Each structure stands twice: as structure tokens, then as C-alpha cells.
């Protein structure tokens, strides 16, 4: 048979909860019951909350002074600005506070080796260009690719880095 009426003690707690004066000591147990009990308790609690909610509507509205709105707008703008500042500071702290991690030595070796490989390729290309020059191959016939032409015209020395991280210029003596 479906329950239609709450025990008196439970209904009293529902009333006190709606009035906002349920004893703090009783609240945790009441909330647990509210989660687990039958729908009836939830309905009763909701209904008493609607009842007390209606009580506030008895009070007639009173228009606050205009200055209060201005104060609110200014205060909120100030809070928003502070919030933005705090956010920025927190973001900076996070970014700067990240722990540096030294990569393995092999990564450095791989990087240097890659740089060296690219430099050699460049050297080979220039050497090929000189050979072609000697045999008077006109630019445009054998090397239609503009990108390749630009590479051949570039005589600036390449830059390398020693183990101490100091830059040095490399010259392949092509000219």
C-alpha cells in the first residue's frame, strides 16, 4: 500500500528545513533520508519550500535609490578587473613555475647530426652547380626550378654551434 502521510517527526523536520531553521545537528541525517526516502518526503519538502517561498511575495517591493545601482556596477567592474589581474598572475606563475627538464644528450647529438647532414647536402648542391657551370649548361634548361636557382645564388656562410652552444660560421669555399 502506498504511503500517503509522513511520520510526524519527519514532517516537522521538513517544515523546519523549509523555514531555514532545521537544527544543524539534524540536517545531515535529514539530507540522507531525503536522498533515499520515498518520493513522498521529497514531494512534501518541495511543497513546504514553495509555501515559504510564497511568504516572501507578501512583502511589497520597494525601489532602491538610483545610487545603489551605480555602486553595484562600479563594484562589479572593479571585481572583474581584479579577477582578470589575478588570472593573469596565476597564468604567469604557472608558465614560469614549470620545472625545467634537461633532455638526453642523444637529442643534442641528433640535432647536430641533422644540422650537419643538411649542411653537407647544401655543399653537394653547390659543387654540382660549379660542375654544371664549367660545362656551360644554361640556367633555365637544366634547372628550371627557381628554388634550386635561389639556393645556388646564396653565397652566405652557414652557421653552426659548438658543444658549448657558441655559434661559428662555416665556409665551404665555393667561390
Amino acid at each position, binding site marked *: 500500500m502506498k504511503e500517503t502521510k509522513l511520520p510526524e517527526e519527519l*514532517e*516537522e523536520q521538513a*517544515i*523546519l528545513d*523549509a*523555514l*531555514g*531553521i532545521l*537544527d544543524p545537528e539534524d540536517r545531515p541525517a535529514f539530507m540522507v533520508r531525503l536522498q533515499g526516502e520515498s518520493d513522498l518526503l521529497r514531494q512534501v519538502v518541495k*511543497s*513546504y*519550500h*514553495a*509555501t*515559504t*517561498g*510564497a*511568504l*516572501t*511575495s*507578501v*512583502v*511589497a*517591493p*520597494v*525601489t*532602491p*535609490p538610483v545610487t*545603489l*545601482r551605480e*555602486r*553595484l*556596477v562600479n*563594484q*562589479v*567592474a572593479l*571585481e*572583474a578587473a581584479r*579577477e582578470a589581474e589575478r588570472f593573469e598572475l596565476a597564468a604567469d606563475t604557472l608558465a614560469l613555475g614549470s620545472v625545467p627538464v634537461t633532455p638526453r644528450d642523444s637529442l643534442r647529438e641528433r640535432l647536430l647530426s641533422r644540422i650537419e647532414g643538411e649542411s653537407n647536402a647544401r655543399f653537394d648542391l653547390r659543387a654540382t652547380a660549379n660542375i654544371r657551370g664549367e660545362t656551360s649548361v644554361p640556367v633555365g634548361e637544366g634547372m628550371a626550378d627557381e628554388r634550386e636557382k635561389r639556393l645556388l645564388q646564396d653565397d652566405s656562410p652557414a652557421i653552426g654551434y659548438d658543444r658549448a652552444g657558441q655559434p661559428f660560421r662555416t665556409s665551404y669555399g665555393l667561390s
Partner: protein
Amino acid sequence: MPVMTAQLTKLAQDQEWTQLIALTAQGDQAALATLYDRTSAQVFGLVVKILTNREAAEEVTLDVYTQVWRQAHTYDRTRGAPGAWLMMLARTRAIDRFRAGAAEHGRMESLDAAHLFASDDETPEQDVEGQERRRYVRQALAKLAEEQRQAIALAYFYGLSQSEIAEKLQLPLGTVKTRIRLGMMKLREALAPYEAGLVP
């Protein structure tokens, strides 16, 4: 006002306020200002009633909307209408202020709950639905005994516990408990048709 029209008006109002609270949660200052424009008279009216001091009520009202600005993200529509949430914040803040003042100035003894339900509209109101609702709730309250109204008002508007009410009214605790319980049961019954939307 026809029932359906009143319900649709309330629904549209709830939707607008919920949207304004959601925008406020995203940091939209204009949305908070609009919410203030829509609701501040009701909030300020309640706080003035509780504190009977306009200056203190202004400060509390400011605190209420500042709290909305900070905690808009905590509003859960499934747990209640936006107006109810806002009035709960206002009532809680006003009670905190009242109790702090009462502890300081011993105002608890001179507390008069009767004025809370008095019909003294200070502002000529354009909100027909609000007036209608107020009239209906007053009629429901009129069905209670004066002692029941007093006990309920002391609890709800001033946050007094049953023991504090018993002490203030110099009554046995059991009497206060009975007044509150019977009064609330009667009020719930009287308001049920209104809450169910059967009455405009």
C-alpha cells in the same frame, strides 16, 4: 488575469532571469545590471522589511548582488526558480545582518513580526501578477491564527530557532512547535491550489 496568461508570464520571466544568471556566471556585467533592474525592488523590499533600516538594507542589497556576481555559477535551475534563489540569498543575508545587530543592540526582545505581513505597499506597482500573488498569499495567511502567523514569521524572516521563539514569547517549547507545525500545514494546504497553477 487568466490562468494561462499568468503562468506564461511567470514562465517567460523565469526563463529570462535564468538566462541573465547564466550570463552573469560567464562574467557578463551588463546581464547582472539587467537582473538588478528586474529584481532589486523585490529584494530591497524584503531586506528593508527585515531590517527596518534603509541604510543597512542598501548595504545588504549590494552584498546580495555581489554574491550573485560571485556565485551565479552555483545556481541550479532544477532546484528552484531563479526568483526563489535570489530571495533566499536576500533573506539569508538580511537575517545574518539582523542577528549581528540584535546581538549587539539586544533588539531581539523588541522584535515585532506583525509588520511583516502588514499591507503597506510603498511603491505603486505595475506588476499586476505580483499584486495578485500577494493578495492570494495574504488571504491564505489570514486563515491562520495570529499566534501561528507570528511564530512562522519569527522563524522565516528572522531566522529564530523554535527555542529562541519560545524564549522571546515566554512560551513552552512544545507550544511553539505545535503553532509552527499546524500553521505551516494549514498554509501549505491553503496555497496548494495557487502553487499548482489552479488559481491565477
